[in-house]
């Protein structure tokens, strides 16, 4: 449980950090360290240098702006979970954050780190997909905005380049929508065996549109478009049938805790429950 040798830098500005990151081929950003350090201790990751972004001022914030809310990359899960601004205007991220790991993990882990890690069972990915979030990255050549739908490219892989630092997540307000995050926890790790993020927009008593992000079930989080299509313009009574399509076209993963077959079943149950809960939350 001891990592291989590495250098450690803790720059105070973003541009210094970007320079350091570009200076070495196998340099890696260190944020909360709750994914990277365990991997290093098991020697699954052996970066030559860590660029700790934890001491860069101005990367931890939750700000409202005209079109929505922006969250700084080093904002911890605990801060996201407790954010009034989020809970009032766009609660999905906060609901997901509150269910991540345990209190220590939530106090150390960051939103940027979680997204950059792209763990197939992490919670945020389902939420940012359902929110159509924008993910902002900086490199020495400037800023780039990546839509959430293009951000996750595979298990533990994202659209981020090696010389880029994820700096911000932007989401829109979900006022008036039915919103929830429903999770079936792995009892050991706390990660999602299945996690379902739901937004329901209504027109009258019918569902106008649905956004359903699902994590834990495949190599990467995905939008359950078959479910979304089946709900468009439908009454709440269409939920059960729609939820049955939660894993349509998805290559389902299995492990010693939950086989692919069980996960396939579980994702339909959890999706139905999430949709019902979201519908109920809006009616309140």
């Amino acid at each position: 449980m001891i990592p291989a040798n590495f250098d450690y830098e803790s720059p105070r500005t973003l541009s210094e950090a970007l320079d350091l990151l570009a200076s070495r081929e196998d340099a890696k950003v260190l944020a909360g360290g709750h994914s990277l350090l365990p991997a290093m201790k098991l020697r699954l990751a052996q970066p030559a240098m860590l660029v700790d972004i934890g001491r860069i001022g101005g990367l931890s914030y939750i700000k409202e702006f005209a079109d929505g809310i922006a969250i700084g990359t080093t904002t911890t899960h605990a801060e996201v979970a407790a954010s009034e601004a989020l809970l009032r205007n766009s609660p999905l991220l906060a609901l997901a954050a509150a269910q991540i790991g345990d209190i220590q993990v939530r106090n150390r882990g960051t939103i940027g780190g979680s997204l950059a890690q792209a763990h197939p069972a992490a919670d945020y990915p389902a939420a940012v997909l359902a929110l159509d979030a924008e993910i902002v990255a900086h490199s020495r050549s400037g800023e780039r905005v990546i839509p959430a739908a293009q951000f996750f490219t595979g298990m533990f892989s994202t659209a981020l380049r090696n010389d880029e630092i994820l700096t911000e997540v932007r989401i829109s307000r979900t006022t008036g929508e039915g919103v929830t995050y429903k999770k079936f926890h792995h009892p050991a790790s706390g990660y999602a065996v299945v996690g379902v993020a739901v937004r329901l927009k209504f027109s009258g008593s019918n569902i106008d549109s649905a956004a359903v992000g699902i994590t834990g079930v495949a190599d990467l989080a995905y939008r359950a478009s078959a479910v979304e299509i089946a709900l468009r313009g439908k009454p709440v009574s269409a939920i059960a049938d729609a939820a049955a399509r939660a894993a349509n076209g998805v290559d389902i993963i299995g492990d010693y805790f939950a086989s692919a077959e069980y996960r396939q079943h579980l994702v339909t149950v959890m999706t139905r429950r999430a949709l019902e809960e979201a519908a109920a939350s809006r009616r309140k």
Partner: protein
Amino acid sequence: MATPAKAPGRPSKANGKGAWVGRRLKRKEDPRLIRGISHYTDDFKLAGMVYCAFARSPHAHADIKSINTDAAKGTPGVIGVFTAQDTTSIGPVPCAIQMPGLKVPRHPVLAEGRVRYVGEPVAVVVAEDLYVARDAAEKVEVEYEPLPVVTDMEKALSNDTAYVHDEFKSNQAFTHTLKNGNLEAAFKKADKVVKQRMINQRLCPLAMEPRAVIAEYLPGENRLTVWSSTQIPHLLKTQISLLVGLPETSVRVIAPEVGGGFGSKLNVYSEEGVVPWLSMKVGRPVKWNEGRRENFMATIHGRDTINDVELALKKDGTILGMRSRVLADMGAYHQLLTPLIPQLTALMHAGCYKIPAIQIDIIGVFTNKMSTDAYRGAGRPEATYNVERIMDIAARELEMDPAQFRLKNFPKSKEFPYTTITGLTYDSAKYQESLAKALKLSGYDSLRKRQKSARKNGKYYGIGVSTYVEICAIGPSAATPAGGWESATVRIEPTGKVTLLTGASPHGQGEETTFAQLIADELGLVPDDINVVHGDTAVVPYGLGTYGSRATAVGGSAAYMATQKLKAKMATLAAHLLESKPSDIVFGRRSLSTKSGKKKSLSFGDVVTAAYTAHKIPAGFEPGLEATHFFEPSNFTFPFGAHIASVEVDAETGEVKIDKYVAVDDCGNVINPMLVAGQIHGGLAQGIGQAMWEELIYNEDGQLVTGTLMDYTMPKAHFFPEFVLDHTVTPSPVNPMGVKGVGEAGTIASTPCMVNAVCDALSPLGIRHIDMPLKPERVWRAIRQAESAPPKAESEESPKKQSKKGTAGRRRP
């Protein structure tokens, strides 16, 4: 029955109620432990200390073709790299068990030519710092030629198998049969026979502190000091002297703070031979600290048995006979007690029931896995699981209430001491009383009502009942491999403070507090006056350590008896000074006085001073105040109790929610109710943990796939409801304090209790058994299977009942 040396004057407070005994005292050890200012083995840094790390096998079974240590040796900071070729002088890892026909494979401290489980140590690196040691261990190049792997016990016993040890031409480590009564007749005349196969899965003991060893050899003095996170410092001292070939008088073992053991540190490990040897070899103190991954792979595991259990019954619920076949996975080698554990399972197979005839066949099996050995409960949880599950299944098949069924088959309290069909003599018990108390406390009748209405609403609510008896206070020496007594030295210091040297080796249990309570009451002092010293073989007389819920019953009795010797001595001196008779002297609060005639008294301190100054002592009186007692118990003790759990099963996901948990335990007299509750709480967490979540899984290649805390579910506090605890108090007649032991009780009853509850919840579906752990997928599969196929009962049933079950099987929301 051991009679206490009758202390003069004041009657002993051994009835469980004294000024201090019986009080909820906070632990003396907690302030230093909670503030992190105490010292575990890894906290010590000796001058000139170097570090070692082991290169371990990634294969479950392979020949070692070659080992190249050049790269490791060439790493700057590396002092030496050693393999089996270098360590031939270290004795094999010991197994203390002897039994007819037991196959004991050679168990070298480093693998010799072949590895037999993942994690087996192959080479060791010593370096100036821990980081270098670990880096260099990665550079040890071992060429392996993989061999067929043996993981499945049943396959291991078939013809179609490789052998873990070629020399035996079999994977059978031993067979052992315990039988009594006319079993054939019992089964022949039975109205009903119920059978069930049950798997008791492999578990990781998971002490919070992994193992750690520091060894310092001083050649001038020929003195080896070893700090080890162990439950058995003295036994380890003896074994280390044999391992490294030093006279026992040259070896000192210190168990500093030990962060839990649960049986896993009741052992002698290869590292405890290698690290001392390294210190002798390199002439520096050497430290080894186990990582959590190593702890998963290379510290003993618990349980891992396959059980086929049958019960013969009369229609009215009377038990006629019981037959069990237990396959017990030994792993690749025997550790200290490996083959003993399943024998405890056999001995306890009668549970708390009158069973007229019994046969238990146990087969020990070698596989390419880490050794199993004592894990909290050690053999008793396995027995209790078999017994309490089959009782529940029998009650259900006979359509009897599980509590009523049990009550019918308990021996009555006046039948104690009760000799079981397996040959044990249970000391004392009131099984009826504890079950009645648990039923009342849980609101059993209203739980059943709740179940009824839940079922009407398509919900699955279940109630589990489990009773238990266990064997503790290990034990009468004749019945143990290395003696079962315990030692204590009580020394009243010149200032009147008291030092107790105990051979028990507390590692979380809190005996620094309870033993102080005990002695304080005897001497009329307060617990803060008494300092309990343990775990250092140079300071404490030989003792056997802490395991088998023995420390209080045996070690505490030793302390009690030694204290009686001192009381007699002080009474003699006080009588001399007060011109009275010793029998006329009574102990009060910090005083000794005469009880008849004109009341004369001396302070406790005055008598102590008189004993040390020896100015005015009776003829033949030995100055000083120190007494030692080696307490030999006349029998084991048999704590017992009744647990009740209620659960709700989410039939859609298979998730089990624990609603209520009630535990009524009887550990005899209680010295400190808070510590007893703590032991029960921890035991319940581990026992329920087994039922619900914990499992070490080796895949077909012998790889440990749940070998991290991200995969192996160690239960957390929030997994549990608030435990509701109560006691009955049935003092044990076999020791002077009437205590029984409580360290393992919670682990023993709770496992079957949970499974009984879940199976009760799902009984309308015709589900009668699900193997542990009851993880959601398993439960879901059982439900799905029950829905798609009519239940196939394993028992011989009347056709009438079968059809009834068939319809019940379809009752689903």
